């Protein structure tokens, strides 16, 4: 226990984070009430880091990323928080700029030049009536001052970068395979040398061989060009291999944040454990797989306490009274490995976990958490 449970989580280590999202909340306004799609989320991204954001559909992971770039429109409203961006090109400024307070002109300069997005569906994100070359020139001319022939040369070299023959500049999107389209999307995102690239399920529609090839290429480009990646996916197994840190999102809130190794070997939150037990592994012995029965709560009227409670095999009455605060995992060496569940630890055995504690009336979740922590690790 290197940090007390009362200290605030400090997600990024070392250098100033490039992108720092704090207390960020987004609601979707509907006739039957506000859907709290993103609820007080803290997440930061350091230079050159790959942060994975994992969650099932509807968990708010895309809303979080798009909201941080102010790409949402009504009925989505950002109800609070700050999004500080501090890129190398803007380093001369004394203070990081808050994306949420930027004017449209400032946003125009920020988007693509500083933060670029690779969208999920390359077929829908590319313009079907423009050739690859013209789409790339559009991007370059919109965000950089550059003579025409130089821009053309840049488009060609970007295709080289992602391993597509230059002759494909004249192709239209429908003439490319799914993997090639996705590579064109990546090339376009990199056209302006952004500091941060947000990738929203960039490989979900592709088969595994192509997926692996593209991911390897993304990592190679990242190492060469030094941008940071926020990688959004519902496939945790992918992130365990790819990401430096992983943030697990459920029902609009972060459940656990830790390094890939911590999430893999010492997952603390029951939801993370459930996710880890959801995908069949190809290697090693066959495990009993459980998945996560049930479905996410209705965010118009979220249940009190932990939103995962109805699906949680560790759940107790005390769970309805906790505030969802990310606090360091008690048994972890790393104070940045944080979880929203104060009860369950990485080595807590499933199911029978808290039957004994069920009857206890515990006013404050912290006291129970502390009590359990001492109970779980006697003299270790």
């Amino acid at each position, binding site marked *: 226990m290197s940090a007390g449970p009362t200290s605030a989580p400090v997600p990024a280590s070392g250098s100033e984070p490039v992108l720092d999202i704090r207390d960020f909340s987004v609601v979707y306004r509907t006739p039957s009430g506000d859907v709290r799609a993103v609820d007080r989320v803290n997440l930061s991204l350091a230079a050159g880091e790959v942060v994975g954001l994992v969650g*099932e559909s509807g968990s708010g992971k895309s809303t979080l990323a798009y909201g941080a770039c102010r790409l949402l429109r009504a009925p989505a409203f950002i109800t609070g928080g700050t999004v500080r961006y501090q890129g190398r090109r803007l380093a001369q400024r004394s203070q990081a700029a808050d994306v949420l307070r930027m004017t449209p002109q400032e946003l125009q300069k920020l988007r693509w030049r500083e933060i670029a997005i690779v969208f999920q569906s390359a077929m829908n994100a590319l313009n079907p009536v423009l050739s690859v070359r013209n789409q790339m020139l559009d991007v370059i001319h919109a965000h950089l001052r550059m003579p025409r022939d130089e821009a053309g040369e840049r488009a060609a070299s970007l295709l080289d970068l992602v391993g*597509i023959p230059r002759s494909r500049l004249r192709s239209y999107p429908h003439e490319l395979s799914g*993997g090639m389209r996705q590579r064109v999307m990546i090339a376009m995102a990199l056209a302006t040398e952004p500091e941060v690239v947000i990738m929203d399920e960039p490989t979900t529609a592709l088969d595994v*061989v192509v997926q*692996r090839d593209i991911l390897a290429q993304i990592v190679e480009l990242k190492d060469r060009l030094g941008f940071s990646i926020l990688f959004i996916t519902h*496939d945790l197994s992918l992130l365990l291999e*790819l990401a430096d840190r992983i943030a697990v999102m459920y029902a609009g809130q972060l459940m656990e944040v830790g390094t890939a190794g911590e999430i893999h070997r010492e997952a603390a939150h029951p939801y993370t454990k459930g996710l880890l037990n959801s995908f*069949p592994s*190809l290697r090693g012995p066959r495990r009993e797989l459980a*998945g996560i029965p049930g479905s996410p709560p209705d965010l118009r009227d979220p249940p009190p306490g932990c939103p995962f409670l109805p699906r949680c095999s560790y759940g107790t009455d005390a769970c309805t009274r906790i505030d969802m605060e990310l606090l360091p995992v008690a048994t972890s060496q790393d104070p940045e490995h944080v979880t929203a569940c104060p009860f369950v630890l990485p080595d807590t055995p499933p199911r029978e976990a808290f039957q004994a504690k069920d009857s206890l009336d515990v006013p404050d979740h912290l006291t129970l958490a502390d009590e359990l922590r001492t109970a779980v690790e006697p003299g270790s």
Partner: protein
Amino acid sequence: MSEQTLTSAAADRGPLAMEAISVSKDFRLGRGQTLHAVRDVSFNLYRGGVVALVGESGSGKSTAARLLAGQERLTSGVIRLDGHQVEVSSRRAFRRYKSQVQYVFQDPFASLNPVHTVRYHLERPVKLHQRAANMSQEVVALLEQVRLTPAKHFLAKYPHELSGGQRQRVSFARALAAHPSVLLADEPVSMLDVSIRLEMLSLLDDLRRRFRLAMLYITHDIASARYFADEVLVMYAGQIVERGPAEQLTQCPAHPYTQLLVASAPDPDNLGSTLRRGAGRDRSQQPQGAPRGPVSAASNGTAVAGCPFSPRCPFADDLCRRENPALAQVSATRAAACWHLDLAAPEVVSGPQGGGFPTTQ
């Protein structure tokens, strides 16, 4: 050929239900070009057994399933159901066939009609394929079979009111309404969230056992095939390049393409793997070294003479580029189509599972 003596790993689950014998399907592309979508594919489905058809997009796995479903005409070959050759020329014959062989589509968002309720989706096949005395009782029973309970709660719902998992359950129920003996499931879980995929697969497994369904499970996720299927068929460019019991095939793949598939699957137990160490190393280790250009040419099955995988294969030589290897038996239950199995998978050819069959015919 040796094909005759090969025993399917699904065979001991139950009696033979459906046979595909040397099935081929060509599509004319115009300008004299032909796409050989499915080439000389043979396999059997057994009651209560699951056969997985694994391959990348464009490998012909969905076309193979559509042939079995009677939705496409065969270019050549024979399909038999319960020992009788399938002939679906007339509408009546087709309907009778459909009451035996049902199809589950990949996308539950597209396969249910948005203007109709769950009740309508289920009543229609019941009316078509059965003479149910009590319709509403039958529909409720269907919903309960796929664990959509309480059934009353779901009957009046429209597809948009259901989650992805619930929709896919409705499409399972719709397929069961005909009381089929064969279920063709085309990527039934790949559109669903990772967290509910397992639940759906275990539901399918439960239905398979309860109704002794002969199941064809089409997927690009070879890891799920390992857990769910008895036998795995790996398809590449319209051909079966390897087949065998699910566990053996995934743990000890023989064909270079299967090896590539297995190597490409995300491997969380291999932290700090090739992926994070950077791509250069990655490419030199995998048979991925070939330029990306020919990938699409190879996988659409048109141009290449010889082994279709040869442009991407690290073991390819002149023989591979000239002649297409036939599927040859390597053990009692396994077969692979490769000229160089001795190089690609020596442990399979002569190993403990080898069974002593020579690779050449």
